[in-house]
């Protein structure tokens, strides 16, 4: 088992208990998704106030909701196309809220450079999901690139708990640029191949 696989396996123990509780209480997965975004707004507020450890704790709670909604939907037999759509839309609000929290903080500190870093990171984080969604309307699958939402969220938590948010923002920015580029390259290649096959 790999290092990250082991961490995931350990984290699944408490999460399974939470999923079982939600299933027993028959909580609708769409409600869990919505509660998750509300808690993420609280995390964004804590980031904006520069209270990083508080923000980290709130992010952990918010992302438990974020993680379990899909699993609860499967367990309850409540999987729906709207649920998937709702989850994706709400996830974007959560993502953007955290970045806005940091942008507010850096603008309060008169740090235009980091306002720009956080804004660009936000732009490429949004484009990461947009390129995949748009690509998958044209090609079968577009799951390339390292910096997806789970990686971003874990990095945010690491940055918050260890007060290394600037380094985290640089990592998110650079790897999100690569991820968007990967998705454009893959889509171009797949469409070119499909075009050649159609001609032949």
């Amino acid at each position, binding site marked *: 088992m790999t290092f990250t696989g082991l961490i995931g396996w350990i984290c699944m123990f408490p999460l399974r208990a939470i999923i079982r509780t939600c299933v027993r209480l028959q909580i609708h997965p769409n409600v869990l998704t919505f509660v998750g975004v509300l808690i993420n707004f609280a995390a964004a507020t804590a980031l904006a106030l520069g209270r990083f450890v508080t923000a980290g704790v709130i992010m952990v709670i918010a992302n438990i909701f974020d993680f379990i909604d899909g699993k609860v939907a499967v367990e309850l037999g409540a999987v729906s196309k709207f649920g998937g759509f709702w989850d994706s839309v709400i996830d974007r609000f959560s993502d953007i809220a955290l970045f806005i929290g940091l942008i507010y903080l850096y603008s309060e500190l008169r740090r235009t450079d980091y306002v720009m870093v956080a804004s660009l990171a936000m732009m490429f984080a949004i484009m990461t999901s947009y390129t995949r969604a748009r690509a998958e309307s044209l090609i079968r699958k577009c799951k*390339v690139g*390292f910096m997806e939402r*789970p990686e971003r969220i874990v990095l945010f938590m690491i940055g918050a708990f260890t007060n290394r948010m600037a*380094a985290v923002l640089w990592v998110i920015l650079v790897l999100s640029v690569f991820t968007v580029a*990967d998705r454009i390259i893959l889509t171009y290649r797949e469409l070119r191949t499909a075009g050649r096959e159609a001609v032949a």
Partner: protein
Amino acid sequence: MKRAATVPGRVLWHAFFWTYERASWQYDVMVIAILAFVWLVPPGWLGDPVAHGSGPIGWLIALLRR
């Protein structure tokens, strides 16, 4: 005619054009590299507006300068 890529070239290309699954050994290497960057680089080098302390590398440099 296509030229065969060198090993460092291939490693760089695969790091850029990322197709590996989570929990693979390549993913572990990337995670370790990211954590090393986040935790070891002194916040001052990045002009971090809120971080305190100089981090392990800064501490090591200060120790060597003594």
